[in-house]
C-alpha cells in the first residue's frame, strides 16, 4: 500500500466499457446504485470498436463486392470496385455512431465515466492511471470487472502492425493484400478469411488442429471447409506456423515443412482474458488454470468483486458478457440471480454461415445421453433454392423426452435462425411445440419446423429415409 494515498469513495465501480461493462453499469444504475465506470480505451469495448461490429460491417461489404462473381447463372451481371479507404471511413463512422450511442445511454443513466486504466491495489481499491500518468485511487463498495480479452500473440510471430498483424488491425486495412495468410482457423480466422477472399485476396488458413473451428461439430467444420475452398481459400490443417521470412510464412507438421507466400500474415489464434492489466489477483480473486477468473453462479470472484464476460470461462462472446452483466448487477444490488443459461448461441459469419446452439450430438461429452437428431437439408427447402444456395442444412437435437436440446446449421442466412433455436432450448420447448408453430413460408425458419417434424417421424418435404 502506498503511504499517504487518498482514495475517493465510489459506490459501484465497473471496470471496462464493453458489452459486459456498460451493460452492468446501466443495469446497476437503473437499480439505484451510483456507478463509476473506468474504460482505458473506447466505450463499447472490443465488440463495438475492433470486433463483432466492424467485422460484420466488413463482411457485408465483402458480400457486396463479391456479388458480381457468381450471379451470372441468375441472369445478373455486376462489376464491383472496392475503395478500401472509403470502406474504412464507413466502418469508422458506424463504430463512432454506436459508441456515441452507448456513451449517451451511460450519461443519461448518470454513470460517471472515467478514462484510464484501473489496477487493483487491494481487495476494495483500485488505482486508475489516467492519460499523462496521473493516479486516482478509488475505494469501492462493489466492483464489476469486465476488462475483456486481447488477441493471443505467438512468440515466434510477433506482430509488427504491418507484415504481421492481429485481428484488430486486419479489420482496418486500407488495402486488399494480394496474399493473406491467417494463422488460426477459429471463428475469427474463418470470418476474416471469407472477407478477404471475397475482396480478392488469395487467402490461406493455417490451423494447428485437424479441423476448422476447433470445438465445433465436425460435420459443420467439414461443410465449412468445402464452402471456403470453393471461395478459393487454401486450408492447411494440422500445421503450425513456425516463422515468417520476407514474403513467406513457414509452416510445419510432424512430417514436413513448407512455405506459403504471404505479404500479410494475421495471427488470429484466439483471445486471452485481460486479467494482468487490471491486476485482478490483488482483489483477492482466484484464477483458474485456463487463466480465467474463478467466479460462482452469481459471477462473484470475491465477496464484493464480480467478474464477467471474457474474463470468465465459456465462449468469449459479447452476448454472454451482456447476460452476465445483468446477473452481476442484480446480485450486487441485492437481488437474486444466477448465470445458469441452458445455451449460449454461437454464430460464425463465414460463407456459409454457421450456427451452433446447445448440445452437439456428435460430442463425446453427451455420448451417455439418449439423443435424437434430425438433419433437414436445404436441398429440400424452397427458400434456400430461391436464395441460390442449397448446400447447407439444419440439424435439430432432442432428448429422449422430446425436449429440444441442440441445434446446428450451416448455409446462407442461417445466422438469423440462432434466435429461434436459442429460445426453444432456453425455454425447454418440445419438438411438438416447434412443429406445432406455424412458420412463415417461404423462409429459412421453416427448416426448423421441418427438423421438428422429422424428429417426430413426420417429415413433410423429405421422403421417408
Amino acid at each position, binding site marked *: 500500500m502506498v*503511504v499517504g494515498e487518498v482514495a475517493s469513495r465510489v459506490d459501484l465501480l465497473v471496470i471496462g466499457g464493453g458489452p459486459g461493462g456498460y451493460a452492468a453499469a446501466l443495469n446497476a444504475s437503473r437499480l439505484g446504485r451510483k456507478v463509476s465506470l473506468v474504460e482505458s480505451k473506447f466505450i463499447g469495448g472490443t465488440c463495438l470498436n475492433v470486433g463483432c461490429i466492424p467485422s460484420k460491417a466488413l463482411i457485408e461489404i465483402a458480400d457486396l463486392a463479391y456479388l458480381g462473381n457468381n450471379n451470372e447463372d441468375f441472369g445478373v451481371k455486376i462489376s464491383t470496385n472496392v475503395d478500401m479507404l472509403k470502406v474504412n471511413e464507413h466502418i469508422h463512422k458506424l463504430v463512432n455512431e454506436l459508441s456515441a450511442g452507448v456513451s449517451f445511454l451511460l450519461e443519461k443513466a448518470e454513470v460517471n465515466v472515467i478514462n484510464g486504466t484501473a489496477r487493483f491495489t487491494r481487495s476494495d481499491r483500485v488505482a486508475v492511471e489516467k492519460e499523462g500518468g496521473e493516479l486516482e485511487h478509488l475505494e469501492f463498495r462493489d466492483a464489476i470487472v469486465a476488462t475483456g480479452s486481447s488477441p493471443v500473440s505467438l512468440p515466434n510471430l510477433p506482430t509488427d502492425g504491418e507484415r504481421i498483424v492481429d485481428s484488430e488491425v486486419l479489420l482496418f486495412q486500407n488495402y486488399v493484400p494480394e496474399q493473406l495468410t491467417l494463422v488460426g482457423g477459429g471463428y475469427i480466422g474463418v470470418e476474416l478469411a471469407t472477407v478477404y477472399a471475397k475482396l480478392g485476396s488469395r487467402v490461406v488458413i493455417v490451423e494447428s488442429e485437424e479441423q476448422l473451428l476447433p*470445438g465445433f461439430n465436425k460435420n459443420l467444420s467439414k461443410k465449412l471447409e468445402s464452402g471456403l475452398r470453393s471461395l478459393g481459400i487454401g486450408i492447411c490443417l494440422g500445421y503450425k506456423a513456425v516463422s515468417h521470412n520476407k514474403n513467406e510464412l513457414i509452416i510445419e507438421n510432424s512430417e514436413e515443412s513448407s512455405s506459403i507466400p504471404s505479404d500479410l500474415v494475421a495471427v488470429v489464434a484466439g483471445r*486471452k482474458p485481460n486479467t494482468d492489466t487490471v491486476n485482478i489477483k490483488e482483489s483477492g480473486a*482466484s484464477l483458474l488454470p485456463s487463466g480465467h477468473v474463478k467466479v*460462482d453462479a452469481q459471477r462473484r470472484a470475491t465477496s464484493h468483486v464480480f467478474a464477467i464476460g471474457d474474463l470468465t470461462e465459456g*465462449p468469449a462472446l459479447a452476448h454472454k458478457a451482456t447476460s452476465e452483466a445483468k446477473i452481476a448487477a442484480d446480485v450486487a444490488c441485492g437481488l437474486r440471480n444466477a448465470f445458469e443459461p441452458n445455451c449460449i448461441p454461437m454464430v460464425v459469419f463465414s460463407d456459409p454461415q454457421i450456427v451452433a446452439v446447445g448440445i452437439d450430438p456428435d460430442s463425446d461429452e453427451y455420448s451417455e445421453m439418449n439423443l435424437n437428431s434430425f438433419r433437414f437439408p436445404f436441398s429440400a427447402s424452397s427458400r434456400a433454392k430461391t436464395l441460390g444456395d442449397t448446400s447447407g442444412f439444419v440439424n435439430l437435437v432432442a432428448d429422449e423426452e422430446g425436449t429440444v436440446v441442440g441445434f446446428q446449421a450451416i448455409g446462407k442466412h442461417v445466422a438469423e435462425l440462432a434466435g429461434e433455436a436459442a429460445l426453444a432450448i*432456453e425455454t425447454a420447448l418440445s419438438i411438438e411445440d416447434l412443429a406445432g408453430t406455424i412458420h412463415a413460408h417461404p423462409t429459412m425458419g421453416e427448416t426448423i419446423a421441418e427438423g421438428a417434424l422429422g424428429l417426430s417421424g413426420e417429415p413433410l418435404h423429405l421422403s421417408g429415409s
Partner: protein
Amino acid sequence: MAFEFRLPDIGEGLEDAEIVSWYVSPGDVVERDQALLEVLTDKASSELPSPVAGTVLELSGQEGERIKVGDVLIQIEEANSNSDQKTSTEKTSKKIDKAELEETDTSSEDKNNFISVAPKVKASPATRKLARELAVDISIISGTGPSGRITNEDIHSAVKTANEVTDSTSTTAEPITDVEKSSLVQGERSGLGYMKSGEHKIKGVRGVIAKNMSASWSEIPHIHSLDEVDASLLIDFRNRLKKVTHQSASKITPLSIVAAATVRALKKYPMMNGHIVGNPAEKVIIPPFVNLGIAVASDSGLLVPVINEVDNLDIFELAEKISGLADLAREQKIKAQQMQGATFTVTNYGSLGGRWALPIISKGQAGILGVGKIEERPIVVEGKVEARPTMPIVLGADHRLIDGDVAEAFKNSVMNDLREPLNLLVT
C-alpha cells in the same frame, strides 16, 4: 472459508494500532458497516466497521494488544454465502501455479472456450427466475409440463409442499417455534423487514401476534394521551443509582425507572390494573397484584415477557428481572408461561429511536404505557427556553373502563415520579 478482516491502514504510514475494545464476540451476527472494535493509533482512536455481514468466528487479539497493519483482526463467516462462493472468496491467489498461468498465455485458441453450454433445466428463464425468487432448488423439481417441462405451477406447489413439511415438523402448541427449513427452501438472507417474495403461511409467533392484535384492535376502544416529561432528574437518578453498591446496580436503565413509576401509579389507580371481560363488556376484574409486561422486539416478532407480582419488588430487583427476561426474549429462549398473565404493559419504542407512537392494548388489560427516546429538546423552564433531556410518554387506555380523568390522573402520577424519581422511594 471465512472472511478475514485485516487491520487496514487507517492513517498515513500507520504501522500498528492498539485494540481498545471489542464490540463483538464470537458467535455474534454482524451487519455490514457495523462497528466491530475500537482501535487506538498514535493519533486517535477510531471504530472499525465490518466490511461484510456475517457471524463472528474468531477474534485475533486481546483488548490492550497491539496489532500490525495487515494482520488478521477478526474472522467472519459471511452471510449469503453458498459453498461455491466460499471457495471463490478463499484467498488462494498466492497458491496459483505460475507455470500454469504462463502456459495459458502462450497457448493458442482454447478449444473448450468454444463449446457452448448444454441445457441443464427444463424450464423457461421466467420459471427459473421465479424459482430463484422463491428460493426453490429447481434442479430437484420434476416438471409436469410437456416432455417434463417445469412450469410456474410446479414451482408454486414445491413451495407449498415445503411449507407443509415445515408446519408438520414444528411444534404448534408453543407460541414460539423454530422455523425449520426444508431442503427445498434455502434461506439466503435474513434481517429486519426481510421476507422472501411469495406466499407464506402464517404460523408461530406471527400467528399469535396477528390474532391478539386483531382482537385488541376490534374489541378495545382505545384512547391515547400524549405528553412530554423533563427527564433531567430521571437521568441523574439513574446515573447515581448505577454507582450504588448493589449487585443489580448496573442493570438500572431509564426503562426500569419508568416501570417502577408505572407500578406505583397502578397501585394508586387499580382500575388501570384491571380489565374488562366480554365483548363489549360483561364484568370487570381487578387483580390484587401487578404483573407488568415489558414489550421486547425479537427476531421472530414482538414478545412481551411478564414480571409477576412486580408490586413487591424494589427498583433493583425490578431492573434485574427486566434485564433477565428481556435477554431471554431477545434470544428467543423465553417460555410461553413467562409471557402470560400481564395486567399492564410498558413498551419502550424509544430504544428503536421512536419518539411518538400509539401503542395497542393487549386483551386482558386496560392500558399500556409507551415511552419514546430521551433526547435534548427545548422546553420552557421558569420563562426561559432551555435544552433539557425530555422523554415522550403516551398512555393508551381501554375507554370502556377508563374515562379521561382516570387516564390523566394515572399518567400524571407516572410523570410526577419521572420528573422527581425520589418519589419512587416512597411506597
